[in-house]
């Protein structure tokens, strides 16, 4: 497939020569860029994939396009179901745009902000124009492949339902969408680079990546329901004022204009053409030079360069909290260590934060009543909230199992060089930090929500579910990850290491606890008694850590 792109470039080589590029070199750079692109783990799915496998991928980009085209095809189905193109195309078009912008933002952080480019290409006899054009060709082919990939099925649905003219109209529409996506991404980057440092920028982009993963995880569950929620009247078409603010609607307006000859859509159609073309002009005229300039500045300096020093306070809330909850100095040290690393390690955040999204589907379990305070009393009859509380453990479990992995895993030698006879403090300090830092605040938030709707009677349930979750965390640490030390394993070993045991806990132990809890609610005083009992179990499990010895560990 990459070859096909290069063939097309070959056909256009005259154009590039005319633009002042050295075509052979341009082709070479684009080819290598594609090769590297295909070996990079996909941002959207890196959450699920092991880092180990990624070393072998040669087609990750094409794989991603393939997956996106399937999702895009699901969106495209609306073209058949809804007879008004204006509504029918809004969803696939919106999807194309959101996906392209997000993929661009996340994937291009690795491509565009890669200062390796500067070091590798600048000392070579390549003129600036060739590099610029190579970049441009790479980005545009990337975006076009992505956009047409997502639109793939929609294109054929259109041909099938509305015929050839509409087919050409949608081909044009996707092109315009791609232009808009590039424009918005470039704008976003320039704004971010203008106002933040390089380090901060990488942070912000990683939040985008998190949002992206969230969207992909929660995406499919939402599709089918969006239309129910919006209560769209599909028989008559009304253009509301706010429609003019949404680019996908301009283009679906254009489709309506072409297919149904509805003349009231001329304003939207006009926007659909004028804005992308104008933005392309702005991009080439003003933004691109500024952009390359900004990128060239990244990381070229030594000493006077972009790296900003971050100073941290030595004592603060964390150390006070650590003193309160830990027993020994070593335990306290580990507690503070995991607290800090989990806050600063970008990769850790990227691996973990999307799990908060795994709770999003629950919103649909609760349904529309959730947003209607009048219906809360009806909801308060059931025990649905137990599901919420136990699902919340997924957050605790994921954070904990991920806390064993780090890019700096080699630094774990310090635990072994430490003069202590028991690794207990190391393991326990980490568990406490993770539970207190991530799970507890999240759980308190959920609790407030549960207490608002279900009232004070849910208090004992809240307590029991929390203790159960703490117990599960300890079990997970003992059995699941064989008491792995915090941040001591490389990301490459993540796959083979204990993911299955985590799966067992999530799929077997967690539901068992949940259903047992539900069963207890039918027994008078079942839950309060269980609370006492669970606390005792937690205590016993906690004491078990004292038996840990160093023999079980190795570097």
């Amino acid at each position, binding site marked *: 497939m990459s070859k096909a792109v290069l063939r097309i470039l070959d056909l256009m080589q005259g154009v590039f020569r005319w633009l002042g590029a050295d075509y*052979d*070199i341009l082709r*070479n*750079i684009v080819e*290598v860029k594609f*090769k*590297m692109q295909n*070996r*990079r783990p996909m941002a959207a799915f890196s959450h699920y994939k092991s880092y180990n496998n990624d*070393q072998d991928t040669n087609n990750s980009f094409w794989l991603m396009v393939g997956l996106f085209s399937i999702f895009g095809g699901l969106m495209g189905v609306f073209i058949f179901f809804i007879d008004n193109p204006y509504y029918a195309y809004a969803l696939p078009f919106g999807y194309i745009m959101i996906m392209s912008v997000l993929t661009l933002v996340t994937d291009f952080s690795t491509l565009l902000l890669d*200062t*390796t480019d*500067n*070091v*590798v*290409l*600048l*000392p*070579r*006899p*390549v*003129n600036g124009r060739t590099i610029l054009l190579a970049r441009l060709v790479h980005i545009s082919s990337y975006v076009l492949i992505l956009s047409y990939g997502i639109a793939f099925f929609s294109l054929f649905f259109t041909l099938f339902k509305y015929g050839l003219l509409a087919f050409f109209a949608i081909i044009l529409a996707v092109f315009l969408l791609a232009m808009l996506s590039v424009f918005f991404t470039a704008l976003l980057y320039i704004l971010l680079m203008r106002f933040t440092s390089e380090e901060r920028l990488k942070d912000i982009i990683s939040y985008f990546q998190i949002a992206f993963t969230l969207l992909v995880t929660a995406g499919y569950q939402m599709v089918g329901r969006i239309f129910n929620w919006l209560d769209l009247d599909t028989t008559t078409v009304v253009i509301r004022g706010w429609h003019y603010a949404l680019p996908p609607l301009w283009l679906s307006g254009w489709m309506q204009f072409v297919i149904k000859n509805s003349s009231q859509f001329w304003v939207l159609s006009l926007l659909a053409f004028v804005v992308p073309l104008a933005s392309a002009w702005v991009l080439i005229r003003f933004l691109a030079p500024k952009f390359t300039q900004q990128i060239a500045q990244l990381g*070229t*300096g*030594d*000493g*006077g*360069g972009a790296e900003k020093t971050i100073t941290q306070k030595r004592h603060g809330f964390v150390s006070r909290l650590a003193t309160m909850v830990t027993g020994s100095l070593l335990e306290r040290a580990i507690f503070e260590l995991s607290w800090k690393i989990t806050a600063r390690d970008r990769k850790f955040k990227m691996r973990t934060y999307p799990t908060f999204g795994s709770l999003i589907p629950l919103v649909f379990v609760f349904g529309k009543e959730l947003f209607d305070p009048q219906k809360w009393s009806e909801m308060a009859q059931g025990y649905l909230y137990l599901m919420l509380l136990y699902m919340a453990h997924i957050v605790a479990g994921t954070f904990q199992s991920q806390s064993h992995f780090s890019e700096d895993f080699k630094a774990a030698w310090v635990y072994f060089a430490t003069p202590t006879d028991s690794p207990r403090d190391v393991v326990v300090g980490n568990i406490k930090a993770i539970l207190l830092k991530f799970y507890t605040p999240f759980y308190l938030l959920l609790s407030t929500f549960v207490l608002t709707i279900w009232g004070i009677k849910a208090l004992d349930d809240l307590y029991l579910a929390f203790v159960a979750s703490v117990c599960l965390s300890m079990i997970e640490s003992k059995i699941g990850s064989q008491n792995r030390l915090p941040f001591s394993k490389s990301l490459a070993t993540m796959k083979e290491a204990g993911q299955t045991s985590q799966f067992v806990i999530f799929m077997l132990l967690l539901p068992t606890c949940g259903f047992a809890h539900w069963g207890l609610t039918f027994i008078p005083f079942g839950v309060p008694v269980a609370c006492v009992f669970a606390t005792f179990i937690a205590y016993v499990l906690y004491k078990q850590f004292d038996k840990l010895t160093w023999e079980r560990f190795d570097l």
Partner: protein
Amino acid sequence: MDKQPVVSLRGLKKSYGRDLILKGIDLDVYTGEIIGYIGPNGAGKSTTLKILIGMLPDFVGEAKVLGYDIREDALEVKKRIGYVPENAMLYEVLTPMEYLLFIGRLHKMEDDLTERRAHELLEIFGLKTHADVRMNAFSKGMRQKVLLISGLIHNPDVIFLDEPLSGLDANAVILVKEVLAKLKAAGKTIFYSSHIMDVVEKISDRIVIINQGAIIANGTFEELKAQAQSGSLEHIFQGLTGDNENSHRAEDFLQALK
């Protein structure tokens, strides 16, 4: 030996923002010389090199390499020089062979030629079995070897090396030293910065010491020795860069532990 300098710098100044990194460098390098360019961290070594290879066009003063003005004929300069950067920066998802082929094409070399040279050079550096393995699993020393090859594969006339020995093991250091000597014998000019004093001392024809953006010493090892009345480059370096208090500091260090 003709006296036309290969590298010539006049009043070279460079600033990042408000910080003046280079405060006027004047330097001539002649054909077949090995120049050891040393100085403390942040003295401006890498910046000088980056200007010389045309990576930083934004500077004040005059800089010529092989008679070409760097600002005007950067491409001509880049065709004839080799550069090995610090920090082992390369496209690590590629294999050494893929990377070297890529670099070769940037220099408009035929693939056959690049491949043949790459094969031989990789073998010499003991990377033959790794020629088709992706570099993300490579150690720093292995990457450095690939970078060295990539800087030399197009057979340049002038070679700029920025910390070329970092991460290399003792055997590889000896090998690189020998290679540099051979390159010199073949008439190449080598300009390199390093922290490793005894290597600089042994292989450099001339040693240039830079401190806080200015050249503070420039001469053969013997000349520097006479000037500083001291036996080793380490002492000369220490004397010139103003760090005389190291033995006091070591004393204080011990005191602080008590």
